[in-house]
């Protein structure tokens, strides 16, 4: 197997930080290389160097393509050399068609300057077929599912004679079927002699796909080995830098109390538009952790948002907190009544970039009160500080800007914010998304302690092992309806997935 790409002694400095420190990496033809490491280990920085986002000269070290040293000045240079990156956050053009997305900047032309639409469509159809995407060239990109969009992005890379494909956490938003399609395609591409770099947190997938695994930690390549020679416990140990005896803490023994939150035929829709979820019924008891499982689009996130009173969801049916119906539905109201919410996508839903940890934590405490209250700065700062210390947040101080923290510490800040209003019920969507392995354990401990203190938690997670470890019961949703409920002894990924794809019976939602 020939080396398509060699990165040699790559070092990248940011003011005050060395993001990469003498990294060596080889990408071979006909292999899938998994690049793993905790958040902040330098994976993205390394891939940005390879894909030309950081131009030559802004880092030290060499990039060799087919043995020849190259200096990319832009992503376009890298693309010409056959290197394509498919981003975690898709970078396609949602308002253009699939065909236009495929050929943007490389339009087939005729008469010197006019776009040849017929060729465009037919070539697009051929590429779509090659990657097995189930869409038409004329579909709007934005109407496709994330999985389909990813396939289109891969087709785009291939159409530009891409030989090295970098996939950055490609499965984080895919359904199991889409994951299967993607994996088949990746194996096909490997057989065709392409080099694939697969960045992921999911160790199961890494072992299902990768020929070799490269582990990055603190900006260094700490280990590169054939996947078969690196057992999972050792992999995790390499990533974290210390042995992890287990992935999950034990759930605390605690008596479950009265029902705190009761949903009775609770349903939500886009105001004046389509149905999002329900009607569903369930109850959440004091000190209980109730999990919601379901595929992407099953309505699980919308259910949490509906309970919290998000302005984009109109709800009907009964919702009772401590035996009382919650009257007007708004996020402010929910916070005052004792419900808190942590959204699934930290960057989109939660963090205030550019603002201090203090401001990020204090927001819920201050904002849900009066509109024109005077802030006693020192007292408030101390409250925030205490709150962050309690959650074991690692930072230089409350003045630090939140975006400078690691994903796990950012998440602790956001959990800290949710606790500011002293809620009885905490809704959490993907509590550990974008959080590295070491910090996940700490977050699980935090959630268990909250439950032990008598808080009730509703948790949505697409990470099934995590959900099974955390939740006392799991309710499974499909198409917005409940298709099953499992208690701890009945847990297995198969049992959950079977119900997640089961057709909801019309009466299923009515059972409490």
């Amino acid at each position: 197997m020939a080396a398509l790409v060699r990165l040699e002694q790559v070092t990248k400095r940011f003011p005050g930080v060395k993001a990469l420190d003498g990294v060596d990496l080889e990408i071979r033809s006909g292999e899938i290389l998994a690049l793993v490491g905790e958040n902040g280990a330098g994976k993205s920085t390394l891939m940005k160097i390879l894909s030309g986002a950081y131009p030559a000269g802004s880092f030290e070290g060499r990039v060799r393509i087919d043995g020849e040293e190259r200096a990319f000045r832009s992503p376009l240079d890298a693309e010409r050399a056959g290197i394509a990156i498919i981003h975690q956050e898709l970078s396609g053009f949602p308002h253009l068609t699939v065909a236009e997305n495929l050929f943007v900047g490389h339009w087939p032309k005729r008469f010197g300057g006019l776009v040849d639409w017929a060729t465009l469509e037919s070539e697009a159809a051929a590429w779509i077929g090659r990657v097995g995407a189930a869409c038409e060239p004329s579909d709007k990109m934005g109407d496709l599912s994330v999985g389909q969009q990813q396939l289109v992005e891969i087709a785009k890379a291939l159409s530009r004679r891409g030989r090295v494909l970098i996939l950055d956490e490609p499965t984080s938003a895919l359904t199991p079927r889409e994951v299967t399609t993607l994996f088949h395609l990746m194996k096909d591409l490997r057989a065709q002699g392409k080099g694939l770099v697969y960045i992921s947190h999911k160790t199961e997938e890494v072992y299902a796909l990768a020929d070799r695994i490269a582990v990055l930690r603190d900006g260094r390549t700490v280990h590169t080995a054939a996947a078969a020679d690196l057992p999972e416990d050792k992999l995790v140990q390499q990533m974290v830098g210390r042995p992890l005896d287990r992935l999950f803490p034990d759930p605390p023994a605690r008596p479950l109390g009265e029902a705190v939150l009761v949903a009775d035929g609770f349903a939500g829709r886009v105001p004046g538009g389509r149905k999002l979820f329900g009607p569903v019924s369930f109850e959440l008891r004091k000190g209980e952790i109730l999990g919601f499982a379901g595929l992407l689009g099953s309505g699980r996130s919308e259910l949490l948002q509906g309970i919290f009173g998000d302005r984009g969801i109109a709800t009907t049916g009964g919702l009772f907190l401590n035996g009382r119906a919650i009257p007007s539905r708004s996020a402010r109201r929910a916070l005052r009544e004792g419900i808190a919410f942590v959204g699934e996508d930290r960057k989109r839903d939660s963090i205030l970039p550019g603002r201090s940890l203090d401001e990020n934590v204090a927001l819920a405490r201050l904002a849900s009160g009066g509109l024109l209250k005077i802030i006693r700065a020192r007292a408030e700062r101390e409250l925030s500080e205490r709150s962050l210390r309690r959650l074991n947040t690692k930072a230089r101080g409350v003045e630090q800007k939140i975006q400078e923290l690691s994903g796990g510490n950012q998440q602790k800040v956001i959990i800290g914010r949710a606790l500011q209003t002293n809620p009885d019920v905490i809704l959490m969507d993907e509590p550990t998304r974008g959080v590295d392995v070491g910090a996940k354990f700490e977050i699980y401990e935090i959630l268990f302690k909250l439950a032990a203190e008598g808080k009730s938690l509703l948790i949505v997670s697409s990470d099934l092992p995590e959900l099974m470890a955390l939740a006392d019961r799991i309710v499974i949703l499909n198409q917005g309806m409940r298709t099953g409920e499992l208690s701890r002894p009945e847990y297995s990924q198969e049992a959950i997935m079977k119900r997640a794809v089961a057709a909801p019976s019309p009466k299923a939602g009515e059972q409490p």
Partner: protein
Amino acid sequence: MIETQATETIFPAPSSRPPSRSEPARGDRLREFIRKNGAWIGFLTLVVIAAALTEGSFLASRNLTNLLRQASLNGILAAGMTFVILHGGIDLSIGSIVALSGVVAGVSQVVWGWNALDGAGALGTVALAVGTGLAAGFVNGGLVSLLGIAPFVITLGMMVVARGLALIFSGGSSISPMGDALTPISDAYLSPALSVALMAAVIGGLLVTMRRNLADAIAPLATFSLLAWAFISYKGVPMLAVFLTAVMGLAAFALTRTTFGRGVYAIGSNERAAHWAGVPVKRVIWSVYAIMGALAGLTGALLASRLNGADPNAGQLFELDAIAAVVIGGTSLKGGTGTILGSFIGALTIATLNNSMDLLGVPSFYQMVFKGVLIIAAVALDKGQRQAA
């Protein structure tokens, strides 16, 4: 409650930072200082150049006092514009609102005869002008927050509507004269004793709020000390600057020390997060435009007083000067970061440029070109510094 189990330090002291984050080198610290103080460094450089080119007459206490009088109206508008831009919006209508509230002030003085009522009439006129601006801003805010239409469009519409109303109410011509009682709000000076007290309070307030980072207080302190010296050795603090100080002081307090201010920053930083953390997003946005309108109304009254008459065509392009001041002061047009003090120095920079070019006899057409270039250069430099960081 939750106790910590891990043994690693939380909020470690600067000496025990994690090893991956190396101690910033001296060069980094200098760069950080320049980045944070770029607007001040730019301003003070401009002052030195102006002083050199005018052979010192720029620094005469009379000229510096005039400079502040010229900067005051734009500074008051820039204070309001800081709120607007911080939440991620823009307000193009304020120049027209200045004209409209000035015309309303003129009508009350001349047509309704309030110019004969002395102090009470003047007070009523100012209140009416502020009320007019507030009403226009209230409409802006309501439309932006309730309809969810881009503020650019709403305030563009208001810009035309308010200008039209100003022309209607005035019959298309200027209204004068204002009563004598209205003149002092733009023309008088604070007595020497009060002037000393006010400037001491401003400098003291600055020291207290910036005590955690005295290095960043150097440039502002130098500037305020220079201004204090100029006022006191000339006639005292001009009334317009008193208004400016009051408006900026209140605005800075509202932004940094109230829940409303936190809400403004939060919305500009991430509106979705703000909403889910319980910030009453619509009410905050609504209030921001109302405040902007009220300050435009106040500016209208002050301008009418200074010109001793109301002109329906006054205030053209005032919105652009205010936006320029805010942006030169380092506030991001995307919202979420920026300060009132920054907008103050932005307004002062623009006034300095105008004033020094006047002193040098640069024709006004050329002045416009220089001013435009300065705005772009200031923001480009700022952006370059930020990206380097």
